[in-house]
């Protein structure tokens, strides 16, 4: 009953005992800002309202970069 998240080389599994939940809630559970990541499932960009299901594999792409002006 898990959803798998890939953040670059890191793999995290989330199991809240639910068979589906919105992306927004999943990111909150992972302690991640929805501003700081793009979430992609099967090549499609997701919004925070999209529902994740057990067995889904979601790629989280960090968007923050830094440096000097």
């Amino acid at each position, binding site marked *: 009953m898990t959803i798998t998240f890939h953040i670059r080389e890191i793999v995290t599994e989330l199991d809240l005992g639910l068979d589906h939940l919105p992306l927004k809630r999943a990111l909150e559970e992972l302690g991640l*800002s929805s501003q700081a990541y*793009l979430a992609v499932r099967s090549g499609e960009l997701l*919004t925070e*309202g999209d529902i994740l299901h057990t067995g889904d594999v979601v790629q989280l*792409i960090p968007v923050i*970069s830094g*440096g*000097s002006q």
Partner: protein
Amino acid sequence: MSYIRCQVCGQRASIRMRQHRLNYCKDHFLEWMLKHTDSTIQKYRMFGRNTRVLVAISGGKDSLALWDILWRLGYHADGFYIDLGIDEGLDYSSQSRQFAEQFATSRNLALTVIDFKKEYGESIPTLAARTQRGKGKPCSICGMVKRHLMNQAAEQGGYSVVATGHNLDDEAAVLFSNMLGWNQTQLARQAPALSGRDGMAGKVKPLFRCYERETAAYAFLQRIAYIETECPFSAGSTSISYKHLLNQMEDRSPGTKMRFVMNYLKAKEDGFFHIENTNGQDEGLHPCPVCGQATSNPDMCVFCRTIGGTPPDKAYR
């Protein structure tokens, strides 16, 4: 199925921009990004259809997204990439250079590449390590070198404007930093468009009204290959930690970042950050005897001093 819908076509939305109250599918988001950027360019009088624009390319998502947008909008935009020689362990520079070159080739765009180490005999990390200014903080040297070489390339290539890929999160982080320190000079100066003057190209940031998440989404949806890893020296930088802080506030109160930057610009326009002798910064500028770029230093400009190997204790006063 429950999902957020595109407000134009009703299909499943790929992006939700709560600060604008806009939800779009892939196609309508890409279209919106072009229109939004073009309206920024026009509203802030950044450049015109016939202006030759030099785009500062890092190989990252923002600069490549900007170049792609300007190209699609039909502007005359050429790229400029500086290979900084930051390759220890991570091949950061060689990889980002490959992304920049691939992008230019795939769209048949002109990209000028400067190999800093080849031209000046040492890489940025080596240069930073032996100078007072760069010790422990190579980003300062790196920023100075990039600004100098960009100005030089613009002048030599006949470009009147240099465009950079700074997004709203970049601007918010710099503004936050300047406010924490009440840095009056910088607070009076930060702007999306700075006009050029003799020997100095104008500087513009056409993506400054876009959230970082949006430029990343644009690059992803447009299938632009870019360097995802950070410059190894920027890891743990204060600008990144400010971005995380601002995002926490944004999550709780959508639009916070946008209001922070846009209301600052409004306040500045209203004279809130007015410094008395606005011409003061231009006075006392003279051409550097070595390279000719305008400098406020009594002798050579900072770049020429640094490259020339002036002893560290005398280099920066």
